[in-house]
């Protein structure tokens, strides 16, 4: 297992005073952040606070208004297959079968037919879709689509993985299963992962650290380290109390014994 201990590793992603605005709308406000190699980082925050925008900047799809992002010491200038992204709504190609979807990145990298076939079959087995290789996305369930999207990104073997609410649209059951699978894959891979999620339990179950963002314009309000060893017990008292803390910071639950100052940016 490559990803057991989180401490004492070199820095992989470095974000400095990142600012993003669209016209007059400020979306990201001076975010600075450092992510260690092999770390699993989760980002939670209110809807519209700029989480997806943050990931898109990190993935090089959007050039930030100000500030900079370095990965492996190099400034991010544009997209790179080594730093790959799973989009909020799976973004499978409707005209491609599961197999062809997973093969896409490899095709674009001009890999040989046989190498592609081997790699894709391997990944379909990994995510449990080997029997559905010939299915089109519309013939799959929501969970299967997310698995396919995950397999597709893993196919190009990136060392940084950005996941934008990959399990957001799923039922609770499927979500738990996929979380376990993601954890298993990550533990064996040594990849650095940044996961955006609405689900605080998911963040606490998976991540080494949980970043809590403010309402728009998104700033980092708090960073919560989760020290517990993996695999974690979802029902543990420690996670439950961390959950209360996180929800409290998000303004969703009263923080007992502490008078909360309302967030000045808070709007309904």
């Amino acid at each position, binding site marked *: 297992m490559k990803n057991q201990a989180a401490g004492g590793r070199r820095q992989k992603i470095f974000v400095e005073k990142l600012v993003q605005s669209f016209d007059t709308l400020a979306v990201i406000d001076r975010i600075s952040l450092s992510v260690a190699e092999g770390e699993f980082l989760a980002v939670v925050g209110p809807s519209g606070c700029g989480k997806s925008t943050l990931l898109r900047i990190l993935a090089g799809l959007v050039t930030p208004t100000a500030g900079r992002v370095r990965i492996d010491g190099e400034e991010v200038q544009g*997209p790179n297959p080594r730093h790959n992204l799973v989009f909020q709504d799976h973004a499978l190609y409707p005209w491609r079968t599961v197999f062809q979807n997973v093969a896409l990145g490899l095709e674009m990298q001009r890999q040989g037919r046989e190498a592609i076939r081997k790699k894709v079959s391997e990944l379909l087995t990994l995510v449990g879709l080997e029997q559905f290789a010939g299915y089109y996305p519309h013939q799959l369930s929501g969970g299967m689509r997310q698995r396919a999207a995950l397999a597709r990104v893993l196919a190009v073997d990136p060392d940084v993985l950005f996941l934008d609410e990959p399990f957001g649209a799923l039922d609770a059951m499927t979500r738990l299963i996929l979380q376990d699978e993601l954890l298993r894959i990550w533990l064996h891979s040594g990849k650095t992962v940044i996961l955006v999620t609405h689900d605080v339990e998911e963040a606490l179950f998976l991540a080494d650290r949980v970043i809590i963002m403010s309402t728009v314009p998104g700033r980092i309000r708090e960073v919560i380290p989760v020290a517990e060893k993996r695999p974690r017990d979802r029902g543990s008292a420690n996670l439950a109390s961390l959950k209360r803390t996180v929800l409290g910071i998000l303004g969703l639950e009263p923080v007992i014994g502490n008078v909360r100052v309302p967030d000045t940016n808070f709007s309904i």
Partner: protein
Amino acid sequence: MKIPLKDIAEPVLFFIALLALWELLVKLVHVPAFILPPPRALYSAFTAKYFILGRHAMITFLEAVGGFTLSFVLGVGFAVSVVYSRHLQNTIYPLIVILYAMPKSAFAPLMVIWVGYGLFSKMAIAFLVAFFPIVVNTVVGLKEVEPELLELARINRGSQWDVFKKIRLPNSLPYMFAGIKVALVLSVTGAIVAEFVAANEGLGYLVLQANYSLDTAFALVILLMLALLSLVLIVAVELLQRKMVPWSAEVRQIEGSF
């Protein structure tokens, strides 16, 4: 796909009832045959002249399909160029949109002067009417791609050619097929109108002849023949679409409603 017997029997019975009612009403009200002949008169007109009907239908079919084919080849080519060239988008495309707003069949008399009296002037009109739906639909289909699908290609360093072949082109197929169906029906109409203007063969010519001799029964038979012609073309395209675009929501919907 298995169609339940009831779904076949129902329309067949309905049409038989309709024909019977028509026959009965014409008899009871004593409608003159040159205004509305009974179905039986249509049948005898058909059996007497099916050979002529077939020959002229072939002509119209050639004109329509010839014009359509030309419009498909040029239309798709043009759509691709417009999407990939800002210059064309700024210059030729607005011109095309203006032409689109014109009644194309009004060009028919001019076409006789420009292209001549024969088949080609009819094909030219069929081409003109079919060209625009193909271009407009294909342009939209090539352009309206989910941004994430394009971004994924950027992340994976796909080439321009990859983006065209693997994303824009397949994305445009359902739109293209929608355009093709409209274009086919229009090209048949275009050919007919062109024959009205100046022709000595084709179903448009034939229907005028039938009209002059007050042979209403035969005129109606010709119209039915035209409907059949369009239907055959549409069904052929529909089948092709199911083969080529099995993933499209539109196709799925058609499958469900057939």
